[in-house]
C-alpha cells in the first residue's frame, strides 16, 4: 500500500448516466487493487490550490489499469470536473488504492449479499467483477436500490451477468420510477422487500452495503433485527446526509 501521490493517465471516459461517468486510469507501477478499495484523487489548479476526494474503484485487477465511476454532486467541488471536464489523455494524481476492511477476497468461501443504494454500487461492482473472474463458486447476490432505470450504472453488464452467470443474482428496487412492464410500483425500499430479495440467514452470507448514510444505517439495522449477525455486515457510506431507502 502506497501513501505517495502517483501520476495517472486518463485512458477512457464512458458515460454511465446523465450525471455519472466511468473513468479509466493507467497508473505506472500499480500492482492492481483489491475488490472494494478506494483511491484518493488530487486535482491541482494553476495557482497550486489542490482538492482531494476519495472514489471507490469499480474494477479489481492485477495490473496498472483501474476504473472509477464518479457521480456528479450538485455543488460538488471535484466531481463536476471529473464528470464534465476531464478528457482522455489528461493526467491527474492518485493515492492508493487503500482499504483493507470493505474488501472481498477471492479466497472467501462464504456466500455474499451485496446491497447498493444508488452510486454505492461502485465498490460492489468491483467485487462482482473479481468474483466473476475468479474460480470462487460461492453465490453472489446483488440488491440494487435506485431511483429509476436511467440511474443504473453498468446496466448492460449487470443485465448480461444477471442472465448468464451461474453464480450471480441481481435484483432491482426502484424508488421513483420503474421500467415499462415492471410488476410493482416505484416505492421506497422496505424491510419486507429487502428480506424477500436477499440470501437467507441459513446461508450465513457476508454482507457488503454501500450507499448514502441513511440508506446504509437503515438497511444494516433491518438486517440485524432480522437476525443476521452484526459481525457479518460490512458497510461503507458516502455523501453527507439524506437519502432514505
Amino acid at each position, binding site marked *: *500500500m502506497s*501513501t505517495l*501521490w502517483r*501520476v495517472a493517465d486518463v485512458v477512457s471516459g464512458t458515460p454511465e448516466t446523465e450525471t455519472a461517468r466511468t473513468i479509466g486510469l493507467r497508473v505506472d507501477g500499480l500492482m492492481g487493487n483489491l475488490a472494494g478499495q478506494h483511491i*484518493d484523487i*488530487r*486535482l*491541482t*489548479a*494553476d495557482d*497550486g*490550490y*489542490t*482538492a*482531494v*476526494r*476519495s472514489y471507490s474503484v469499480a474494477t479489481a485487477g492485477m495490473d496498472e489499469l483501474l476504473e472509477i465511476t464518479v457521480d456528479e454532486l450538485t455543488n460538488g*467541488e*471535484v466531481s463536476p*470536473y471529473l464528470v464534465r*471536464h*476531464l478528457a482522455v489523455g*489528461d*493526467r*491527474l*494524481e492518485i*493515492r*492508493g488504492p*487503500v*482499504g*483493507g*476492511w*470493505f474488501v472481498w477476497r477471492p479466497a472467501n468461501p462464504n456466500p455474499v449479499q451485496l446491497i447498493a443504494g444508488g452510486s454505492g454500487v461502485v465498490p460492489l461492482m468491483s467485487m462482482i467483477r473479481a468474483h466473476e473472474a475468479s474460480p470462487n463458486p460461492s453465490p453472489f447476490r446483488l440488491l440494487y436500490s435506485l431511483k429509476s432505470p436511467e440511474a443504473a450504472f453498468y446496466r448492460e453488464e449487470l443485465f448480461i451477468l444477471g442472465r448468464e452467470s451461474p453464480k450471480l443474482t441481481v435484483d432491482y428496487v426502484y424508488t421513483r420510477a420503474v421500467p415499462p412492464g415492471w410488476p410493482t410500483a416505484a416505492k421506497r425500499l422496505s424491510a419486507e422487500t429487502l428480506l424477500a430479495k436477499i440470501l437467507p440467514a441459513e446461508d450465513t452470507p457476508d454482507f457488503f452495503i454501500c450507499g448514502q*448514510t441513511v440508506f446504509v*444505517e437503515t438497511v*444494516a*439495522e433491518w*438486517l*440485524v433485527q432480522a437476525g443476521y449477525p*452484526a*459481525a457479518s*455486515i*460490512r*458497510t461503507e*457510506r458516502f*455523501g*453527507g*446526509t439524506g437519502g432514505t431507502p
Partner: protein
Amino acid sequence: MGIISSGFHGRRQTGNPALPPGQHETADFPVLTAGPAPDIPIQDWEFFIVTEQGRRQVWSWDAFMALPQVEIRTDIHCVTSWSKLGTTWRGVSLDTLFEEVETSSEFTTAHSYGGYTTNVPLQDLLDGHAWVAWEFDGHPLERAHGGPARLLVPHLYFWKSAKWINGIELTQDDVPGFWESNGYHMYGDPWREERYS
C-alpha cells in the same frame, strides 16, 4: 506542485488556517463506521479502565454522569477529508477518569461496544486532550454518531474518537486497532496528514 488540471478552479477553502492539509469543510456530520450501529441501553452501559496489571475501574452511566461535566468546543477532522469546525460537545475529561489510575504503560487501546478498537498513546488522552462525550450540539449523542457516548480525541483523525465507547485498556505496546490493521496510520495526526500506513 503536482499536475495542473487546466480549467479546475475549486472552492478555495484551504485559505482557512483551521483546516489541516487535504481537508475541506463540511456543514453536515457524515458518518464513517464499518458495520451496524450497536444498540446500548443506558442501564446496561458502562465504562471501564483496565491497567496492564489487570486492575479495573468501572463506571455505570449514573456514576459517569455524576462526574464533573465539561463543555468542549473543537474542530474535528475525518480521514475521508471532511472537517467540521466549531463543534460543541459535553462530556467527562479523561483526566478525571484517570485520576486514580496507576500505570507505567504508554499506550492504550480504546474498546467499543460492537468490537471496534483503536490505539491511542496515553499522553494523547491526558492533559485536556480527550473526553468521553455524550452530548453533541446540545443534544444527546445519536446512535449513528456513537451514542450513548464516544471517545473524543479531536487532535487526531476522527476514527480515533471511538464511537460507542466501552472502555480503555492500558497496553505495554502500541497495538494496532481496527482501522490501523486495515491500512490506516498508527497515530493519525491530521496536521501531518498521517492518513495511511
